[in-house]
């Protein structure tokens, strides 16, 4: 796939980093403000899709990128499951037990394990949406090459 014109490329350069940072902010502040892992993950995936659409995919090794995003996705859900299982080991033996100290309501580092779940679920959602997009792109390019 070919890229777009110079104006689009420059504008995307300025915007994409800010969109990425906004996604990270939504994920990290998920227990204080609206948002969380699901919303922030989709925004992070959106910033990558914006870059790919503007710059084209001629200079990328698409298969390698797809392998990386698949591994990230599976790692995210595995880590979330590990944290849930850690509740079985410590303290009261309950699956999905909130085993870290809670802290005061309203501070950034509070609410026990909920921010960790937010981060790992955000990782999983971002990687899975990017994987579907890359798979569609690889399919289109392979067919035009034949």
């Amino acid at each position: 796939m070919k890229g777009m014109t110079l104006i689009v490329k420059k504008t995307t350069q300025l915007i994409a980093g800010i969109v990425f940072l906004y996604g990270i902010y939504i994920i990290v502040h998920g227990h204080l403000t609206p948002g969380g892992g699901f919303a922030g993950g989709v925004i992070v995936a959106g910033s990558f899709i914006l870059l790919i659409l503007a710059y084209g995919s001629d200079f990328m090794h698409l298969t390698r990128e797809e392998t990386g995003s698949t591994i990230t996705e599976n790692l995210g859900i595995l880590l979330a499951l590990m944290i849930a299982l850690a509740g079985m080991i410590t303290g009261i033996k309950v699956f999905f037990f909130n085993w870290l100290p809670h802290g005061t309501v309203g501070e950034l580092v509070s609410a026990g394990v909920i921010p960790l779940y937010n981060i790992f679920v955000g990782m999983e959602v971002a990687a899975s949406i990017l994987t579907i997009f890359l798979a569609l792109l690889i399919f289109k390019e392979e067919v035009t090459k034949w």
Partner: protein
Amino acid sequence: MVVYLLCFILFLVGLYGVVTRRNLVKIVISLSIMEFSVFLFLALIGYVHDGVVPIVDPANPDARYVDPLPQAMVLTAIVIGLATTAMLMSVIIRIYRKYKTLDIREIKNLRG
């Protein structure tokens, strides 16, 4: 009560599209319209008059919150909806490469 009825009508429009259309892309569009109406119905059930956004404010302890349970259900379902729509779209692009048409009756006739 009018709002509930309009929400049902949106669901029925999607049902009409699924039953009568012959184009595969139109069928996927109708499915996502049905999905949207179900999300809206769940969000309507949780609304309370003069309710505030369900975020705890220590300065205002006895506020009346909107029901957070349907919102939590819908939040995960929206992201699942994106993934399933993308999967249906990949099925469609595969079918078009093989049969060169999107009409479901022609595809059925070609297969015998």
